[in-house]
């Protein structure tokens, strides 16, 4: 328990006060460092709600969440923002890049928010990220001038900038074609294997889920399945 990277215990979420909607109920699980996990379930089953709780974008109505040993309810808004910046990387369905900034600056943004000095090592890190993402030579371009697949790769680069322990991806390929979808997942896998980054990926694509190491399935806000996929690694390779 103590060494789990993510530990959810009895997590629940109710939206609204007048008309209460229960989106999540009694969800408990633990995830260790370096795991590559899919969260599946029908639309409205609570996947995004769970990811937002794990990502400290929202607070649970019940239960506790430990991230690398820190209890999320003990943090104030500022503390949550800080931990989010240091520990977590997000990839959303939509790329959410800042159109006012170049590709390079978009990738650098989480680091700039952390307030660190932009030195040579950081410049090299951005270069490495661009290379890993297959975005060599596009750093100076405006984020708006890229194709959809490229934009999503920039968003992934941004999520990886602070070398987070956990990447949370909410239907990251929902807006991409098959080719780009496959590219994104093999990228996730490479990073997971080379850097040991933990991935939690929300998807409703069974093929993709089957390529992960572990699948959490939600139904009506409840965790109904938590299975390890022994063959996943073999399939991707």
């Amino acid at each position, binding site marked *: 328990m103590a060494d789990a990277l993510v530990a959810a215990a009895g997590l629940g979420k109710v939206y609204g006060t007048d008309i209460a909607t229960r989106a999540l109920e009694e969800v408990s699980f633990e995830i260790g460092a370096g795991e590559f996990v899919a969260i599946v379930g029908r639309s409205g089953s609570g996947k995004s709600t769970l990811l937002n709780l794990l990502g400290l974008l929202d607070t649970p109505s019940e239960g506790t969440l430990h991230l690398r040993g820190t209890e999320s309810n003990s943090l104030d808004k500022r503390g949550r923002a800080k931990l*989010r910046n240091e520990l977590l990387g997000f990839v959303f369905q*939509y790329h959410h890049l800042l159109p006012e900034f170049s590709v390079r600056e978009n990738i650098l943004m989480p680091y700039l928010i*952390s307030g660190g000095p932009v030195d040579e090592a950081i410049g090299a890190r951005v270069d490495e990220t661009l290379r890993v993402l297959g975005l060599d030579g596009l750093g100076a371009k405006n984020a708006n001038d890229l194709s959809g697949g490229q934009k999503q790769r920039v968003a992934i680069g941004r999520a990886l900038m602070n070398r987070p322990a956990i990447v949370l991806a909410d239907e990251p390929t929902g807006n991409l074609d098959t080719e780009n979808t496959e590219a994104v997942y093999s990228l996730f896998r490479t990073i997971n294997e080379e850097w040991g980054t933990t991935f939690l990926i929300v998807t409703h694509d069974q093929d993709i889920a089957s390529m992960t190491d572990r699948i959490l399935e939600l139904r009506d806000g409840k965790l109904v399945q938590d299975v390890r996929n022994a063959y996943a690694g073999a399939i991707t390779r």
Partner: protein
Amino acid sequence: MLPLKIAWRFLRKSPAQTLLIIAGIAVGIAVQVFIGSLITSLQGSLVEKTIGSSPHITLADPTDGQPVVYSAFMQRVLAGTKGVSAIVPVRELNVLYSNGTDKVPLTLTGGEAGKLNLIYRLSQRTVEGVSTLKQGEIVIGTDLAKKYLLIPGDKMLLNSGSGAPVSLLITGIVDLGSSAANLRTAFVGPDLPRAQLGFRADQYSAIQVQLTDPFGSTPIATAWRGQFPGVKVSDWQVDNKDLLQALSSQSLSSYMIQVFVLVAVALGIASTLAISAVQKVKQIGILKALGMADGDTGAIFVWQSVIMGVSGTALGVLTGFGLIAGFTFGTAKSGAGFPITPQPGFIAISVAVGILVALLSAIIPTRNTARLDPIEVIQNG
């Protein structure tokens, strides 16, 4: 510095909007600087014309023509009063200047040249010759000189009504700033009027006093009235009540114009920032999701308003100076009017108010930003 950088990018992303609001601030501040300096200079020029070279407080006998005694006590009191910058005892003699058929009434103001200089600034105002005011010399105004073609070196025959006419040598011609004074006033040494009026050495037509602050005259005049019973103490502010009232209502209306201009500027910046905050709500949500603190996202809007406020104000001050220069040039060309002096204090206040107003208008977007929940933005793509 990240909020500043982002603010700058936001502003650059919509240059037309940014430039418009900067222009709006600039116009507001330029009007401020121009109107403020115009009114202040106009009033300064009017006050200067009224009292610049006349006494602020005059002590005289209540009966016209009767002398006031400049006693040792009075000398001590006047010299010992704080704020008194010049004390000039004068003797005034009404004479007729005969020029062929014309008989021109003139008032001779008699005193020591050095003393008269303190109030009338004769040496500064001498346009021809010199104003030494030695025995037998006279200094006349420009209009009189022009009308009767008099130049330094000419002699004037003056008749005071008592005794024989006297002949005086014109040594200088002065411009007293108003044509009435230039036509009717002349200056002589102290002895001629004294002899003609039959005054003792300590008797004068009036003791004229100037103060460092002309607007502080009333309490001083009141105090002197108590100390010198039987002496008429005149205060320029009482004698020019109408002018001063006009000036103060003019100031009031200029303040009102300025307040409305500032309100318009404030509304302009505030609405632009509010629009900007709505336009950038996605970006703010993303930055928050990436871990930017509320204080920093709020600071983006503060920086935006600082950038627009400072550059708009700077541009406005420059434009204001331009307007002042243009106005001064225009009126100088037409010969009418007066120079506008830029008022540094007033400009400093305009600058401070301009920037403060810009900062205040950042309050609403900053507050809304703090309230924004990043989830809303992220889920609505």
